[in-house]
């Protein structure tokens, strides 16, 4: 957000009044990993949109401008930690080595979009809002009961905080001291519904109080602030201190999804302003001010991402039409005899 709101944690400055901060012990290599991750997701998102316009995938939930939240939090995780994404984080698996064609296939309604969560420690994309919050909490609680040290992170939006599923999951997390991070992407819109029509709370982080868990508010356009807050939450979780609610404050400056026409409800000027301040550019300028990012490295990151995405699209194009038999597959380990009766 510009200017950074009081009480919202921010590390990246603006090169003018607001000075740049840094995260202790986070070296250049790690900073460049964050950058590459953001470039990868940005590239995925922009290419997907084109791919959608070409009619190669169906409705697609754009996450342009949300890369700082997704990359900053995901790269703070340990490899064994589990990610529970919503549709907004459909491509977050790319940060865990998932090939782009898998995600493209999901948006094409192709069974190749079914991935094995255990292969990436990334749960399936959850479409019904907030209903995966209890899953992440149950996973984290279960891992703790098994004596493992892995944590879980659930991604959901500002609108999701209105759902009973969020509430019940958050309360279970606190009561069971689940090593979970509840990461709320507060982009201030639920499709056409503004935050002001979603809650009267002064901040979504305030909700943490009612669950007796720490609530943190960070600038969701600041990948370093998100990284730091997530790392702290995970440290608490692994220390047995239970869950943390993180509100990552941003602004949805793209349509909700390809099917959505926001002109009916949003303010173009505000959107333009937010666009100019989008998270990848902010981080890129920060890295250049810090002398960490060179033109060569930037170009390399972009071309690597593009190459990966091109290959992904080629692979998606090469997907064979699904075997109709898939309709009857997988619903049961041990299917009832009447399964095919229709």
């Amino acid at each position, binding site marked *: 957000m510009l200017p950074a709101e009081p009480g919202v944690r921010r590390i990246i400055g603006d090169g003018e009044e607001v000075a740049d901060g840094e995260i202790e012990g986070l070296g250049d290599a790690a900073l460049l990993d964050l950058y590459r991750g953001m470039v990868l997701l940005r590239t995925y998102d922009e290419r997907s949109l084109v791919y959608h316009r070409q009619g190669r995938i169906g409705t697609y939930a754009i996450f342009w401008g949300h890369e700082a939240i997704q990359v900053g939090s995901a790269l703070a995780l340990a490899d064994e930690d589990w990610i529970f994404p919503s549709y907004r984080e459909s491509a977050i698996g790319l940060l865990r080595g998932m090939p782009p064609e898998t995600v493209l296939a999901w948006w094409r309604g192709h069974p190749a979009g079914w991935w094995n969560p255990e292969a990436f420690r990334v749960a399936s*994309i959850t*479409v019904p*809002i907030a209903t995966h919050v209890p899953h992440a909490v149950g996973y984290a609680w279960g891992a703790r009961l098994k004596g493992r040290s892995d944590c879980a992170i659930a991604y959901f939006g500002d609108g999701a905080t209105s759902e009973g599923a969020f509430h019940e999951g958050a309360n279970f997390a606190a009561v069971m001291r689940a090593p979970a991070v509840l990461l709320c992407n507060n982009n201030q819109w639920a499709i056409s519904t503004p935050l002001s029509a979603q809650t009267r709370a002064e901040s979504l982080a305030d909700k943490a109080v009612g669950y007796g868990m720490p609530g943190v508010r960070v600038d969701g356009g600041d990948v370093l602030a998100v990284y730091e807050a997530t790392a702290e939450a995970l440290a608490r979780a692994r220390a047995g201190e239970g869950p943390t609610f993180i509100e990552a404050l941003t602004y949805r400056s793209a349509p909700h999804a390809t099917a959505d026409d926001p002109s009916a409800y949003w303010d173009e000027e505000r959107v333009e302003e937010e666009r100019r301040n989008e998270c990848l550019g902010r981080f890129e300028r920060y890295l250049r001010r810090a002398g960490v990012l060179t033109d060569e490295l930037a170009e390399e990151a972009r071309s690597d991402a593009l190459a990966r995405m091109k290959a992904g699209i080629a692979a998606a194009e090469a997907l064979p039409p699904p075997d109709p038999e898939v309709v009857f597959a997988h619903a049961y380990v041990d299917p009832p005899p009447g399964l095919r009766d229709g």
Partner: protein
Amino acid sequence: MAEKTLVEAVNDALQAEMERDGDVMVLGEDVGRAGGVFRATAGLLDRFGADRCVDTPLAEAGILGTAVGLAMAGWRPVCEMQYESFSYPCLDQLITHVGRYRWRTGGAMEFPLTIRMPTGGGVRAPELHEDSPEAYYVHTPGVKVAIPSTPADAKGLLAAAIRDPDPVVILEPKVLYRSPRGEVPEGEHVVPLGQARVAREGGDVTLVAYGAMVPVCLEAAELLDAGAEVVDVRSLKPLDEETILASVAKTGRVVVVQEAPRVAGFGAELAAVIAEKAILDLQGPILRVTGYDVPFPYWSVEHEYVPTPERVAAAARRLLAY
């Protein structure tokens, strides 16, 4: 009469009923400024104001639960569920309260709620945007259920639901939202609940269906050499048994078609009613053509799941050859 799409007809009904009765209000997710993700509520906010066309928080049980209270305060709430699968969170309010509250008051109070939602597949949408949940609703006492298959019925049944003194769930086949168009009466238009419609006459076999399966059955009928009668149930509860049984009495052969998963779907109820009340009319088994006992598939293969005219025609031929 004007030619309209089904979703335009829904909007028509909302406009007409809100105009007619100042107690009618619409609430749901994105129904206001956006006019609904399918535009079913377009224009209502500007015309009737923010008190009567309410963009709610993202909480379906909250929508239906507050609607119960709104009804107690004297309103006639029309709740939109953005997609059928997102109505599942309000099944608890529906079963424990919407269907019981009048009964609980010894009949002293009325709960004239309407719950409307898109339903069904065939629209190449992501997971949980293509379910057919009517069986959950129709099994619930105290709740009426209707599913239109034409723009005119979409308008008329919704108007009837809004005027009905009891809670009514209207499921709108989203695959039919934008085509085909159909003649829709201007102004007030009511199709009473409890009346099935013979969509096509025929003497040899009866195809009983509702919603998006009605056009599928009409196509199937064209594939047959025999005379197929197509009965559009329209109102699942109250159910027009007479029209269905009369057709079965005439043809002696019946295929029940439903898009929802087969097991304990509403098609089973139709088959059970026929097996109880028309057994002597039957010249063969009662066949069902339905979705399978699996989740609605990813859309690249949805056509392998949703009953097709070919599957319906094949079942009819089996019966005709029986």
